[in-house]
């Protein structure tokens, strides 16, 4: 059967043998394709088949299920009637099997889809219809701690690869009946479950429609991860900057939904996609909300500084030391000259070596097995760090510049914006070494123009800075206390803008009431 062919309604046969043969043929006698043919003793020796995929079906559940099936009590079926397959089917479907999720279908394609998602199919001889029971029980990873979005004060659970568990994690936090999941199956081969989560009556329907439409329009064979989906549904621009963001934190998704954003879950990916996503949101870590607001403001400004430090500092250093030496204080200039006196390369090559070296170390530390971590630290930092300077390959100043940018990049909790910044850094280095400050200024203007032109779900990417929106500034560059933020952010255009109805607490009388009299 050609799975790529357009869907045609093929109805299964009444005869069990024909059906089983067809199923086995279509699955090519795969060794995890299980068919168990039974005979129902107390029901006129009716033949039945239980079909499922090994590994996708929970063993114990299936065991209970088969026992329930085999003990069909004849007394329920009217004995005076001749052998009645339809009646037996109904008894089993309605009375015998205590599955929560049950369904039936006579369409071959539907049955196949359900088999492949871990359902168990029961076929009864003489009935051209199959029962579908949920026996899902594939191996799943336990809920772990977040890897990329660590939080000191926040919850420690993160999403897993099973979409049902992820939605459960969300439901547990968001006990609102208005929470909706729009279901899609993406990928002709993978049929990956994709849920678009939103809150009816709060989330702007425009975003929901946009997300649903873009997901529906996808025609692709496989989809394995959230970022693959992001690439398929984000606004079409040539840009390194992320226009949709993935998160592994259920609390962050909950927060996004409650503010009017749309969350998209992809089965098999421990990340949920949040949209629309704005540039400024990349600089707010979830810990900002679990921390003293002033402290969060300081941390945020550090993150903004880090972003511009990453993209600008290497370029500025190259420009300073090759074109604008007059801008370096004399004593510092002398120090740099001394360090560079034995250096054979130009400043650009020197910085390039350091930057590439740090990227190599960074990549290596991501992929290294835990056991060799210590030896890598020694080789990477001690041996390489000291010898590379002593050999005269690069100067101290270059190492300092490289270190500042690398350490700054750890400050950006958002890995996508971090990657973008590190790539922009190289462009600024090239321009800094050829056109100096003039080139850097021009390139920065170009970068800003580019950012202004970006959109996320058709919303301006730099909102609420450009276009400016005063009331949304409470949670952008600065973070104000929760009591001050009585409305939901306007950038997400929620249908219900009121967030809290805090009435100011009556001021306590100084000294309070006396307990003496």
């Amino acid at each position, binding site marked *: 059967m050609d799975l790529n062919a357009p869907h045609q309604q093929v109805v299964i046969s009444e005869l069990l043998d024909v059906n089983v043969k067809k199923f086995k043929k279509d699955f090519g006698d795969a060794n995890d394709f299980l068919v168990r043919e039974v005979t129902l003793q107390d029901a006129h020796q009716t033949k039945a088949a239980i079909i499922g995929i090994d590994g996708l079906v929970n063993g114990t559940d299936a065991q209970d299920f088969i026992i329930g099936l085999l003990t069909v009590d004849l007394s329920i079926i009217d004995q005076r009637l001749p052998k009645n397959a339809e009646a037996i089917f109904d008894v089993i479907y309605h009375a015998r099997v205590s599955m929560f999720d049950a369904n039936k279908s006579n369409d071959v394609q539907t049955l196949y889809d359900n088999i492949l998602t871990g359902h168990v199919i029961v076929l009864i001889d003489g009935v051209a219809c199959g029962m579908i029971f949920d026996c899902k029980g594939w191996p799943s990873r336990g809920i772990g701690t977040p890897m990329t979005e660590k939080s000191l004060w926040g919850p420690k659970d993160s999403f897993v690869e099973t979409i049902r568990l992820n939605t459960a994690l969300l439901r547990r936090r968001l006990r609102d009946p208005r929470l909706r999941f729009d279901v899609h199956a993406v990928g002709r081969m993978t049929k990956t479950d994709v849920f678009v989560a939103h809150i009816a009556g709060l989330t702007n329907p425009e975003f929901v429609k946009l997300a649903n439409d873009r997901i529906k329009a996808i025609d692709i064979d496989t989809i394995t991860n959230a970022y693959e989906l992001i690439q398929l549904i984000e606004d079409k621009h040539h840009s390194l900057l992320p226009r949709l963001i993935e998160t592994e934190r259920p609390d962050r998704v909950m927060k996004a939904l409650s503010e009017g954003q749309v969350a998209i879950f992809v089965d098999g990916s421990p990340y949920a996609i949040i949209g629309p996503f704005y540039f400024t949101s990349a600089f707010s870590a979830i810990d900002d909300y679990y921390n003293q607001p002033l402290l969060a403001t300081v941390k945020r400004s550090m993150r903004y500084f880090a972003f511009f430090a990453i993209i600008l500092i290497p370029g500025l250093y190259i420009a300073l*030391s*090759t*074109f604008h*030496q*007059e801008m370096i204080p*004399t004593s510092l*200039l*002398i*120090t*740099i*000259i*001394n360090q*560079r*006196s034995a*250096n054979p390369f*130009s*400043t*650009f*090559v020197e910085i*390039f070596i350091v930057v590439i070296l740090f990227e190599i170390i960074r990549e290596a530390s991501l992929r290294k097995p835990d056991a060799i971590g210590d030896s890598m630290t020694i080789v990477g930092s001690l041996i390489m760090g000291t010898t590379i300077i002593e050999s005269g390959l690069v100067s101290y100043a270059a190492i300092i510049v490289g270190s500042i940018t690398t350490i700054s990049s750890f400050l950006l909790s958002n890995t996508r914006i971090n990657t973008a910044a590190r790539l922009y850094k190289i462009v600024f280095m*090239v321009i800094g*070494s*050829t*056109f*100096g400050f003039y080139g850097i200024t021009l390139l920065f203007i170009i970068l800003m123009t580019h950012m202004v032109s970006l959109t996320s779900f058709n919303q301006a990417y730099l909102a609420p800075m450009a276009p400016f929106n005063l009331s949304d500034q409470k949670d952008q560059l600065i973070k104000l206390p929760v009591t001050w933020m009585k409305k939901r952010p306007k950038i997400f255009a929620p249908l219900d803008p009121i967030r809290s109805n805090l009435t100011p607490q009556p001021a306590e009388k100084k000294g309070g009431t006396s307990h003496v009299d």
Partner: protein
Amino acid sequence: MSIKKLIVAGWMTLCMITFLTGCLEPVEINKLGIVSGLAVDQTDDGYIVTAQILNPAAISGKTTNALPVYSLKAEGTSIHEAYKKLDDMQSAALSLSHLNVMVINEAFAEAGFAPLLNFSLRRFDVRPDISIVVAKDAAASDILNVITALDLIPANQINISNRVPSRTERLTSYNLYETVDMVNTNTINTVLNAVTLHREQTQLDEDHQLEAGMGNQATQNGSTLNNILDITVPVQLRFEHLAVFQGDKLVGFMNDAEAQLYNMVLGDFKRYDIVTKIEEDYYTSFGVTKIDSKITTDLAQNEATLQLSLSGLIFENTYPIDLTNQENLVVISEHLKSSLAQDMTDFVNKVQTELKSDIFGIGGKAYYQEHHVWKEKEGYWSELFPELTLNIEIELEVNSVGEIGNVTL
């Protein structure tokens, strides 16, 4: 263009950028010859330009057998020509961007130092925060070459802006742009610092040098390490005069005491000291902590009034008088006032008759206070200024007598 071609083109661009120089003449930082001081001596044929160039390795202590700076000298018909010769003398690319100070000799100052301003303003790499200094009774290059004990870089010693502000009551601190403004305008005339070579000659020293056969030119000028190996520092730089200009031409010098009075008239807040003799045998030292100077002009009457109001405290007193008595303070302040008034009158007379240069900026005050009269007389202000009647009004107040009242020593 196909993707493949684009990638190849991108790689080629990256390689070219990396290994070829850019179009803006980039200079790698270690190929830079940083000029910290420039001396310009006018000769009959042109100029001798001396550049003091930093030796970074010696400054940071990497090499111990070299001086932190070296000096190069070249002659040319123009300053630029001489400077280009200097550039060709060594491998480093000379850069004036870290220039601290420019020294000119007396002959150049007398002939007018505008060519130097012309040279420095046209160059893109000369910063405005440099000071111009006149070498009095010495060649500018000799001044620049004196090795000093305190500062590794000799030029820093001449740069007045490096000094602690409260210690500069006898100095001026005009930067390049201010100097240019003052040269160009006729509302105020230029005053620059003048530096002299002071030779601390002892008999022992001379004998020693003669014996060692080192009484040569270099030792005389303090340009060898011997200068700082001797505790008395045989050759020192002294800032004891201010050079007074008319336009860009030097007309004379003010001495130490006059320099302080000059700064007082300009009303710059600095720490001034007035020492006065009382009845021949006693003296009082007065430190000014607040100064208010005001010049009002009346050009129609050919008159100007200088009002100075000072207040401060007594640092030292040997006059036997009860300082705790308020009335006696008036007596002291009268003494101080009359002494200051006398000095000021003498000073103003010297400026008007001898120097004939409006260094107080009276023209500038007239420009604002009586614009129309000034516009009429602007053209012949230099002839008018010496004839001007300058009234001096001084108010002086003793605020404090210091930490103690009376002493009976």
